[in-house]
């Protein structure tokens, strides 16, 4: 009950004060440059990684990236930069 109330409070604050949602609500911020790069901030860890598929853990649920010849250019605790040919981006509800 209390957690839900807190969520609502955050939601209302971001909307009324025009704050970026990814900061306030721990959501991933995804930047893509065409199909070449995908840059994800605020992930919670690497689940699977192959040259065709990358699965990342998020605060809520998971993110599935599909494509070809993936390489992880950089990986930091909360950021990841993947290079290759991005074809699909799927949110999996956890």
């Amino acid at each position: 009950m209390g957690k839900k109330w807190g969520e609502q409070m955050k939601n209302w604050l971001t909307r009324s004060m025009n704050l970026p949602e990814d900061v306030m609500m721990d959501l991933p911020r995804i930047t893509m440059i065409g199909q070449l790069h995908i840059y994800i901030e605020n992930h919670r860890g690497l689940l699977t990684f192959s040259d065709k598929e990358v699965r990342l853990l998020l605060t809520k649920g998971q993110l599935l990236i599909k494509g070809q010849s993936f390489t992880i250019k950089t990986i930091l605790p909360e950021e990841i930069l993947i290079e290759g040919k991005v074809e699909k981006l799927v949110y999996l509800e956890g």
Partner: protein
Amino acid sequence: MNNQWLAFFQGVIVVYIQGQGAERFINQLIRSRIPVWQVTRHDERTVSFSCSLTHIHKIRRAARDFEGEVRFSKGDGFPFLWKRLLKNAGFVIGALLFLFVILLLSNIVWRIDINGATPKMEHEIRKELANIGVEEGEFILKMDDPETVQKKLLSRVKGLTWIGVEMKGSTFHFRVVEKNEPEEKKQAGSRHLVAAKDAVVTKLFVEKGQAVVKRNQFVRKGQLLVSGFIGSEGNLREVGAEGEVLGETWYRTSVEMPAETHFHLLTGQQVNKHFLELGEFSLPIWGFKSHSFAHYKKEEQEHSISFLGFSLPIKYNKHTYYESEQSLRSYTRQEAEKRALEAAREDLKAKLSEKAAIQGEKILQREFRNGKVKLSVHFQVLENIAVGKPITQGDRENARKKHNEHSTREPE
């Protein structure tokens, strides 16, 4: 990612991991703040990534908990390059030695060209150059700069009017202009001897010709002393008059001598410092001791170092500090006067020919003012006053006229 260069200098290693749960291993690494990059999957079981060499121990520790196999593959970056370099040390040393030899050879004089000189003069110049230290096979750094070489040559080689010194790479070019000293004219036939200045004749040594003046006679400048016409009236002949006529001449000089003089004397103590200069920055390479001279004179010698004919931006600079002493010289009036007189004498001697002798001197005026002695001195000098003067047509006619007068008078 922003410090790729730092990673390159620290060294980069590629790690291969085989087995299930490679993702978990990577997660574990990044959670313990070990940056990894370039993560690629090769097959079902193999993943490779790059990481910094400095974290290799942490990765080993993490690998203990990992059930698969962790293998360190090729290294990249500066430490590995260095290792390879050391392995091929012989090659590197060879390359450095090669550069060093070229550098050395670029700073040696290979050739000395002398243009515009007669063989004799060229030989003379080469000999003098060897004395100065400019020789084929010598280091340019050890030598004086072209201007100094020029100055030294001009002062030491007789018969040089001008010499152009130019350094092109490792070659010295000299362009020579010789003095065209007029050869002393041989006694061009007949001449008189006339007085060079006003004087009183004291002695006459006539070798050829006929003396016209007597001892103790006062002569004016240009007056005939020894005639070139000899023989009795009947057969007058012309000869080149030769001889010496000593006459007493007079000079008046005025000199000034300060009673107190400050001098800078070099004591002979010197300190050398050697620098390599790159633009504004100068790196001392030898002579780190700083001099402790209260007064000194500083001299700088600069040489640019050349490589294969190009001059590098590096310069070699030698500073020499000579210790100097300030000393005060003070004279009493009598002493100052004496010195002034000596100075006057020296002054006069420099003007006179070597054979001339000072017979007497007399101080005409002495004045002491503002710490200075001012003397006006009169000198009596004994010197040769005879100079040759060719017999002109006019002289001949005069002589003939005189002769004719005689001959017309004769019959009487």
